[in-house]
């Protein structure tokens, strides 16, 4: 049930060790005839347990190992993927990638393959997580259900739902120029939603980590249940621009969505919020409150992200926004060369920020920030966020599972949920307080934020 070695006598599929991944990559490279060949190997195990109505509804486990072969012939390139790992299947997949590459038109932006690289070692694989089997997951689900039931009892028999998801994975990249990169990691996420039997209250809490032993299912259940009880009988207030206190999970719903906008090429091409009128980018300009610092660093002990991207390019620490100044955008190797700057890795940024994401926090707890708030709205998390305008990263979405009015430093009322139309970029310019940062999921750290003039546009009856 847990990840096992490829050479384990058990037939259960593997998470490849470094040596096993290297051997598999060498086997593929030995079959290749293209000018350049890159092999990406992903070996994954997942175990999950889902619950609702106080019982486990579905649970399962899955293992898979995939090999992607990218062949470059001159400036022509294509890739083919298989998860059938015998020599015959690997050979025909290599052949297919090479055949497709020959048929593809020349890519004027094709960059030469990287030679051997040096990577910062990142230990992101935790045995306690990898060993969390179905019995352990069921026990955690039971604990959440029982604790939430106890705490929620004052509202009656609460409805408890949730999800515990555990992943182990290895990533390996090798190419015909001698590059070899290997990284393995675990992550686990536990979330729970508690609903009151009258249908008017709902609370949610979530936590994620590389290390299962750092999560506390009981504490999570208590938080969600307390929110459910407190959120009963929400009242409507007029939509409009309000000061908001966003808990770290709510900040985590918004700030990472800036990732796409950080693509340097789009900025240079004039189709990004970071395009400078008349040409160029806004790097070096103030784009946020001076207390805002956002960076990626795979070796940061709170992040522990993969230290290389999909091409095997090493990922280091990158400050994106530092003290409110736009410090960098994500540069692919091609665009970096064209612009004469250093690439950041991450394939140019369409996939978001490479190397985890951390928004630097302050010292105040969420409670202390609430206590210092004259009038505002406390947000637990957001739902169904979609882009409205790429020029400003204007988004729409809804509040969910615990929205409260703060008056004179105290939570005074449960509020009906809102739809909002707002940009995280606008929000980062309207910061009043930045509180303590915490890990919101594996590879991500976000603080509590108080910001003014957050635009709520309509009410939602949804509980």
């Amino acid at each position: 049930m847990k990840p096992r070695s490829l050479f384990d006598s058990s037939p259960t599929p593997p998470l490849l060790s470094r040596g096993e991944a290297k051997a598999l990559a060498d086997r593929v490279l030995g079959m290749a005839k293209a000018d350049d060949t890159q092999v990406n190997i992903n070996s994954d195990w997942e175990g999950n347990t889902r619950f609702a109505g106080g019982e486990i509804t579905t649970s399962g486990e899955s293992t898979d190992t995939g090999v992607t072969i990218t062949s470059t012939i001159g400036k022509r390139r294509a890739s083919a993927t298989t998860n059938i790992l015998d020599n015959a299947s690997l050979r025909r997949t290599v052949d297919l990638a090479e055949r497709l590459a020959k048929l593809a038109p020349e890519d004027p932006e094709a960059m030469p393959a990287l030679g051997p690289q040096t990577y910062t070692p990142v230990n992101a694989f935790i045995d306690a997580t990898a060993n969390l089997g179905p019995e352990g997951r069921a026990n955690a689900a039971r604990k959440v259900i029982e604790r939430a039931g106890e705490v929620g009892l004052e509202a009656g028999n609460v409805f408890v739902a949730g999800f515990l998801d555990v992943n182990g994975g290895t990533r390996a990249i090798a190419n015909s120029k001698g590059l070899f990169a290997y990284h393995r990691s675990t992550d686990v996420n536990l979330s729970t939603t508690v609903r009151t039997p009258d249908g008017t209250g709902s609370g949610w809490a979530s936590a994620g980590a590389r290390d299962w032993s750092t999560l506390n299912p009981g504490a999570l259940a208590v938080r969600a249940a307390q929110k459910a009880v407190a959120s009963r009988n929400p009242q409507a207030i007029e939509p409009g621009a309000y000061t908001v206190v966003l808990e770290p999970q709510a900040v985590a719903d918004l700030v990472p969505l800036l990732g796409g906008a950080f693509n340097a090429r789009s900025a240079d091409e004039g189709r990004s919020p970071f395009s400078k009128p008349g040409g160029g980018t806004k790097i070096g300009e103030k784009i946020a409150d001076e207390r805002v610092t956002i960076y990626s660093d795979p070796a940061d002990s709170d992040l522990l992200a993969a230290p290389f991207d999909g091409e095997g390019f090493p990922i280091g620490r990158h400050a994106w926004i530092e003290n409110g100044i736009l410090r960098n955008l994500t540069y692919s190797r091609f665009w970096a060369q064209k612009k004469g700057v250093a690439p950041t890795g991450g394939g140019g940024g369409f996939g978001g920020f490479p190397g985890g994401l951390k928004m630097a926090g302050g010292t105040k707890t969420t409670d202390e920030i609430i206590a210092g708030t004259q009038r505002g709205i406390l947000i637990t998390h957001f739902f169904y966020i979609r882009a409205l305008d790429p020029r400003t990263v204007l988004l729409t979405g809804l509040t969910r599972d615990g929205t409260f009015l703060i008056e004179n430093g105290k939570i005074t009322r449960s509020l009906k949920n809102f739809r909002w139309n707002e940009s995280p970029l606008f929000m980062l310019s309207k910061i009043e307080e930045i509180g303590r940062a915490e890990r919101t999921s594996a590879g991500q750290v976000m603080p509590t934020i108080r910001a003014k003039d957050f635009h709520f546009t309509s009410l939602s009856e949804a509980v």
Partner: protein
Amino acid sequence: MTTSRRDFIRTSAVAAAGVAIGSRTALGAPLARVQPPGSDPFIESLALEGLNAAKAAGASYADVRIGRYRRQFINTRERQVTGVADSESFGIGIRTLVGGSWGFSATSVLTRASVQQTAQDAVRVARAAKTVQRHPVQLAPVAAVKGSWMMPITRDPLEVPIEEKVALLLAANEAALKVPKVRFVNSGMALLREEKTLATSDGTLVTQTFVRVGPQFSATAINNGDFQSYSEEIAPRGQGWEYIESLNMPGNAERWASLAAEKLTARSVEVGRYDLILDPTNLWLTIHESIGHPTELDRAMGYEANYAGTSFVSPPEKYLKKFRYGPDFMNIQADRTQEGSLSRTAWDDEGVPADNWLLIKNGIFNDYQTTREQASWIAPITGVKKSHGCSFADSWGTVQFQRMPNVSLLPGEKDLVLDDIVAATDRGIVIKNRGSWSIDHQRYNFQFSGQVFYEVKGGKITGMLKDVAYQARTPDFWNSMDMIGGARSYWLGGSFGDGKGEPGQSNSVSHGAVPARFKQVNIVNTGRTS
């Protein structure tokens, strides 16, 4: 190294006795002709091995799915190809019921020993789940069936030479780049062929082949620090290459791109209430979000509470056969048999035959979407004891659960088209194509946008608008519908990527619609700059 794989290929070739190995397994090698593939004795014996091992380990019920997914993606920008990628994924998923609790396990290693181990793992997962159980699962009856089926196509998109695909896309881009101010064009296509064998301990053994294609096109125009994009609403379909050819992307791209340029000069909308005329290219997604999802029975019962949310159409006893969703002429059909649609099938992942039924009948909420586990929950109200056949998994590696069938607005009796509705409207806005979409977790409050917006005054289109989104409450919105098009104006849209469940799964689903008018809908402006 995995000798197991080599064993499998060898065994498969031998077992298939005469079927060329290349035609069944080789990536890129000639695929089976466009006809239902015959049975594969090795695959079937492996499936039965899984069933037997699950039963021996203590399962009261088990099903085994062996799936092979082949996908190809081609993406371009302007005059270059940005990606050509081909992938295959092959594996087995085993679901077991032990003492009324589900357990699931999946592996990509297809040897007998691995399949036996996976079946035992699935039973172990189910036993663990049984320790946190309140209501044992009960399955609705279904007749055992044996057979095979393939989505009808005339040309397998994965067999079309890559040069032909690239040439089509680059020709479309070239045409688009003729339009002044259009600087960027992206086009692409996603092509899928999925072979799936299902065996259940009830005696069902079926093999199905699905083919789906999803072309894309968008253009961006730039002008003095402003930019506007336009994405053509090209519906993905459960069809072959013939569908992509029928779109004539190279012949239409210039017209599509000119809309991006025209948006640069469009007037920003004034907020307020307007009569809203939605083209089917926009309305299909509104149907999906505000009718498709709330009528999923697992949502209504709280099974999605921790993620996608619940439903305002709940509890069933309060809403079924009573709740007025919209006007009398509103009929919403769920259908897994519709030609060309994405969720067309012969049997679902529990072996239940494809069904079609009305979710909304003459404006009244009539029925939910169900699986075998769910049918009995509402049978006393609906009188329907069988499953509607909505159980699907997006991969061999994920467990099947309730997924949306094609859900469509049936045409009205009058032979009206969009122009007729415009002509009958004094002050309104026409919206085409999907833009931004967002809806709350009980499916009440939604806000949808589009790609192009036209102002209507005195029965005529008077100009283009921008920054438009409509925001409404689902029951108010549908009850404000006062005109719909006839059969001639019906169009089938859809999505490859409908997300639901934890861990998240992606479902392909189509939605048919006719143009429709909605009275006095709230219009918001999305063009804020600070």
